[in-house]
Every structure is written in C-alpha cells, then in structure tokens.
C-alpha cells in the first residue's frame, strides 16, 4: 500500500519535473530499487536522456542509481563484459559517519528498546555510545539540526576549495555537488584527467583527503640539527601540518594544552615558554623540537593531523570513492527512503536540505504512530516533539519519520 502511495507521488513528481540525465548517459549502467530495497535490478542502460526521462515518468522507481564508471557495454550482465572505460571520482560526506551528534538526535537501543534524546548524554559530557539501561551499543537517529548542517557544509567546502580547487588544480566545471537525499552530500569529480585512474590511484587520492595513511616523519629532514621541516607557506599536507602546529602553539594558553597533544610534561613546558621563538623558527622551515631521549618527537604532530582532514580524522567508509563499479544515486531524483531529493547544488551555503529538497507533497495525510521525535523543522514548518503518539501527518513528514525508524503507518486517511 505504502509502495503504491509513494509510486504515485514519485510519478507525479517525475511527470512535472524534467530530471537531467547524468553526463555520458549512454555509457552508464543504471540500477533501480523498490520500497525498502535500494537495488532490485541493475545492468540497465539508456541510450539518450529522453529515454532516461521517459523511464522515470513511466516507472517512477523508488531509487535510481547510476554507475560512477563509464562502460562500452553498460547493460552487459557481468563487469568483465561491460568493458570499463573510466570512472568519476566521488567523495561522500555523511553526518552520521562523521559522528556529528546534536542534542536533538534520538537514541534507541536495539536490544532493550529503550530510547531517549542525545542531549541526555551530552549534558553528562558523554557521547551516545552505550545504552544506560542494558549497556548495549545504541543506534543514533539524526534529526534536522541547523548547526550540524553548517558543520557538514564547512567540511564539504574545505574539500572543494582547499583540496580539489587549490591543491589538485581542478576547475569548478569539473566538480559537481549534490545532496545525497539522506544524511549528507556527494562530491563528483568528472575530470578527464582523473577518469582513467585505477583502483590503487583512487585509494591514494582518497587517503590524501582523509589523511589516514599520512606519516608526518616524511616531512622532516633529521640529518640536520635543528631538524628541517615544512613551512606554513608550503603547499599540500606539509604546509597544512606546519600551519596546524603554529596555530596550536599560538592558541595554547597553558602547558596542559600541549600535554594533551601527547607531549611529555618537560618538553611541553620548554616548548610553551619558547613558543614565540619556535613559531618564528617554523616559519623559516627550522623545527627546534625539544625532545627527550627515546621519545617519538613527531607523535604530537601526527596527532594534530587527525583534525585537519575534511573527514575530521574519522574512519569513514571510502568505498564510494574507491569502488569503480559502484552505483550512486542519480542527482535530482528522489531518495525512496526519505522522500528527499538528491538535489544538484550550485551554492551549498544557501541550500537547506529539509526545505529545498522536499519532493513529496503534503497530501495525502497519513495516520502514523510516532515512538519518539524531537522538535524539528521540515518543509518550512516546525513539527514535534512527539512521544508515543498517534498522529495525522502530511505525507512528506510521515515518510521522513518512517525512514528514521521512529514511526509506523497505521492506516490512510483520505482527508
């Protein structure tokens, strides 16, 4: 029933909106999904943009994804037969992977079914990790939060401006940005120069962005005394690390600020007192690092690296960037789970996903049983808070709450 309701709404949307096909549509493999299953059929292809649009209008799939790869025979049944010609490079940003918790989020324990708001944890200075009742790991359900959105946009902006445009020298035309339709953003790099890179090259490029495999010892020349190292004005990661060290020293108000970076107390004390001289020296590429025998003097610098990547040092799933056979949501199509549009963005800062990407209509209204939901903004209105309530809500909010796993549809009202 819900499937039919959604299919009708999707069809109405696709009939009134022309969705542009991805570039080089004839070289892409497509996959479509139904309610609750992102891919039920793949190895599909469309010869033209018109064919693709007609498919959306006729079939209104709940999910439609396309390959990051370009194939000679995109509809061939196996990857070998498709004959890969190249692939876009995609970076995915999801707020849940980056661990950006908001007091507005809801936690649920899958084991004992206890639930509550994340602010209960945050007020105690804890992260929502273990259920306070049974100790099992909890599941955090994220709700719209303007601060988190700002933070996520900042990270995407850093990736695009600092890494892709400034360092990799890409032109803005080679970068496409879209909302994922759920919790984050996708950055597509469609540069001819990067298209033919193999999997290993993609892993290295992804590591460049995450900073995960970076070893700061490569930046230093220990054959000189004092050690020679990067200057803040240097390009790439060496300069970024030098700037971070200078920033950390300039912000340090007490010795303990350096100790938390992993320095031993004696070295931290010495460095804190001489920090002005140290900063001046680093600006010239000379690093008079105080260190005691046997101590890894680069460990505190290595620790700083974590916070410098757009992924904030988090262990993110980079499969999307590395896997050249991956299917990814077609921009400007509806995410069947949330009812939000995977909208192409020209300016990320003026985009509000919970207002601008709402694709479903408000009618019909559905009667839903909401377990728990905070007060949140959606489709330009404020909803909630709800706790164990039966409500009549517009279609878009109902679907959104159901996708979060905090509501169930009980029956349809034809109001």
């Amino acid at each position, binding site marked *: 029933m819900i499937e039919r309701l959604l299919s009708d709404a999707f069809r109405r949307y696709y009939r009134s909106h022309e969705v542009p096909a991805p570039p080089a549509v004839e070289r892409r493999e497509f996959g479509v999904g139904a309610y609750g299953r992102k891919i039920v059929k793949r190895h599909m292809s469309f010869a033209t943009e018109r064919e693709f649009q007609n498919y959306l209008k006729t079939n209104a799939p709940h999910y439609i994804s396309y390959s990051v790869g370009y194939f000679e025979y995109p509809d061939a049944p196996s990857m070998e037969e498709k004959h890969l010609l190249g692939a876009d490079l995609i970076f995915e940003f999801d707020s849940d992977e980056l661990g950006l918790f908001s007091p507005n989020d809801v936690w649920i324990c899958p084991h004992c079914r206890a639930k509550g708001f994340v602010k209960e944890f945050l007020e105690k200075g804890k992260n929502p990790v273990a259920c306070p009742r049974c100790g099992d790991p909890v599941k955090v359900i994220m709700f719209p939060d303007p601060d988190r959105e700002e933070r996520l946009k900042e990270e995407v902006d850093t990736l695009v401006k600092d890494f892709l445009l*400034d*360092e*990799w*020298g*890409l032109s803005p035309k080679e970068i496409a940005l879209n909302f994922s339709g759920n919790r984050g953003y996708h950055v597509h790099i469609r*540069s001819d*120069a*990067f298209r*033919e*890179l193999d999997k*290993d*090259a993609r892993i*290295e*490029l992804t*590591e*460049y962005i995450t*900073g995960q*495999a*970076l*070893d700061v010892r*490569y*930046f230093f*020349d220990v054959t000189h005394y004092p050690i020679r190292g*990067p200057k803040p004005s*240097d*390009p*790439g*990661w*060496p*300069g970024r690390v030098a700037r971070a060290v200078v920033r950390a020293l300039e912000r340090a108000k007490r010795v303990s600020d350096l100790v938390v970076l992993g320095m031993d107390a004696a070295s931290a004390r010495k460095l804190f007192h001489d920090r002005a001289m140290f900063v001046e020296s680093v600006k010239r590429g000379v690093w008079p690092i105080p260190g005691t025998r046997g101590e890894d003097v680069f460990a505190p610098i290595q620790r700083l690296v974590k916070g410098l990547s757009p992924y904030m040092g988090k262990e993110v799933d980079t499969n999307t960037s590395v896997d050249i056979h991956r299917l990814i949501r077609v921009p400007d199509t509806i995410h069947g789970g949330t009812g939000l549009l995977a909208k192409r963005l020209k300016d990320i800062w003026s985009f509000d996903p919970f207002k601008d990407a709402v694709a479903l209509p408000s009618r019909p209204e559905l009667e839903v049983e909401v377990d728990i939901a905070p007060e949140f903004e959606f489709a330009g209105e404020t909803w909630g808070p709800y706790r164990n309530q039966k409500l009549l809500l517009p279609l878009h909010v109902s679907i959104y709450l159901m996708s979060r796993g905090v509501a169930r549809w009980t029956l349809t009202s034809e109001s």
Partner: protein
Amino acid sequence: MSDFYALFPFLPGARRLLPENLSLDLIPEQVLASASSRLKNILSKRPDYTTVLSAREEVFHYVLMRLLVSILGTDYYYDRFARYYAERTRRQAAHLDDFLAEAGADPEFLDVPTYMSFRHIYPETKLYHLPVKGGQVFFPRRLFPYLAGTVAYSLVRSSLPADVSDVPPAFKDYARAAVPVTVSSGPTRGWGFVKRLLSAEGIPDGKKRILLFWIIPYLANVKGLSVDEVVARVQEWLSRQGGQKVLISWVRSDAELAKKKGIRPWSLKKVEQTDPALVKMLREMGVL
C-alpha cells in the same frame, strides 16, 4: 656524452646516434640474438650487464628490444620493460639534471593526473607526502631520482607498442625467445604442461581459465594439497602474472569445489577444443 645516451637510450636526442636509412633486414643475426637475450633478462628481472656497450649499441639495442617486446604485445611486458629503464634512470644520480633537461621534464614538478598514472612505479612517494598546489606535484630535491624514474617510465611506455608491421618475420622467433618462461625439469608427459604453466611468468590474459581448467584441479586433486595450500600456491603464481587482478575469494571457492567434487584437470586436447584462443595464446607465448 656517449655515456649519457648509453644510460638513457630512450631519450629523443639518442635517435641521432642511429644510422640513417636503417634497414631491419640488414641487422646481423648476432645483434638480434644479443638484444633478444638481453630482453629475456630484463623481462625475467635478471641482472643486465650493459656497461660494456657503447652509446650507439645501446640505442640500437633499445630500438630492437622495443620491437621485440611490441611483437609479444602484452601490457605486462611493456610495463616490465619500462620499469627496467625507470630503475636504471633512478640510479644515475650524477646525470639526473641533464636527463630531466633532455627529457623536457620540469625538474621540479609533474601535474597530479600524470603523477597518479605513473606513481605505481615508486609507490613510496605517496601523493600526500609531497607538496601539491594548483594541480602540480612538487618534488623536493631528495626525490629527484624518483621523479626521473617516473619520467623515464612514461617516456619508454609511451613509445610502446612500436609499429611492427614492416618487421621481418625472423624477429618473431627472437621475440618468442625473449619470453621468460622457466620450464620445470619434471617429466614432460602426463601433467608436464601444467607444470610448465605453474612455472610460467607474465601471463596477461586467461588467468582465471587457466586456474579453472588446470592449475586448481591439478594442485587440489593430483598433488593432493589442502585448500589453504592451493590458495597460497595460486596466490604466489598470480603474483608472477600480468593483467587484471583475480580475487582470492574466487580462488578459494573454486579450490573448495574442486576438492569436494574431486575435479581432475582437463586435458590439453579438451581445452584446445573448447577454448582454442587460450591454447593459441599460451603457445604463442612459448608456455605450452
């Protein structure tokens, strides 16, 4: 100067050392045989004693080896040939500035996509450890040898495969002679051909079929190895071959199936009937 081109015979300037109106028909058998045997050393990663040759001979050898490796016609061999010159270039610290100038490469940087296409030559120079700005990868002085090696690789690789349409037929035999196949000393009857396959190197295509038809059933049910041993042996074999990756999970499931059902290796005759292209390719490589 002659030493310089002996070290870098692939540089554009080295071409002027070649005689004008060079005719491949007039090349003495002895020179061709020596180039073929050098190529065999290069392809099998054996030491290559080149210092005795003059610059002119080196350039001449390079041209011949380029033709021979083009006749072999596999990416794996092109890569190995280019890597040989990359490594040789990396070691010539005294000539690096001259080399980069002659190669027309900027001695300080490469653009990111070019660097990423050739960075597998020296994976120790990871992109995130180098200064990157405006789409250019800057090389600190200490990494110049790596930069030179990368440039050498790209120069050699970009000239491969060479046009072999006018090459005399005798070259084909010398090309085949350069294929680095170590044939086992075991009996040539029975499963001798599977042993040859097991000792072969640089097979670029058909690896999965070779494993499926012969190697996995042979190891599992003729040699009686356990599944883990089969997987380890196949992994070692795959590391010596070219072309695309074969998933180990696939190898394991195939070994388990072969073990469970007691599948024996197919005879050469049967494979020749069902997959003549595979047998033809292996014969052309000199493996069978």
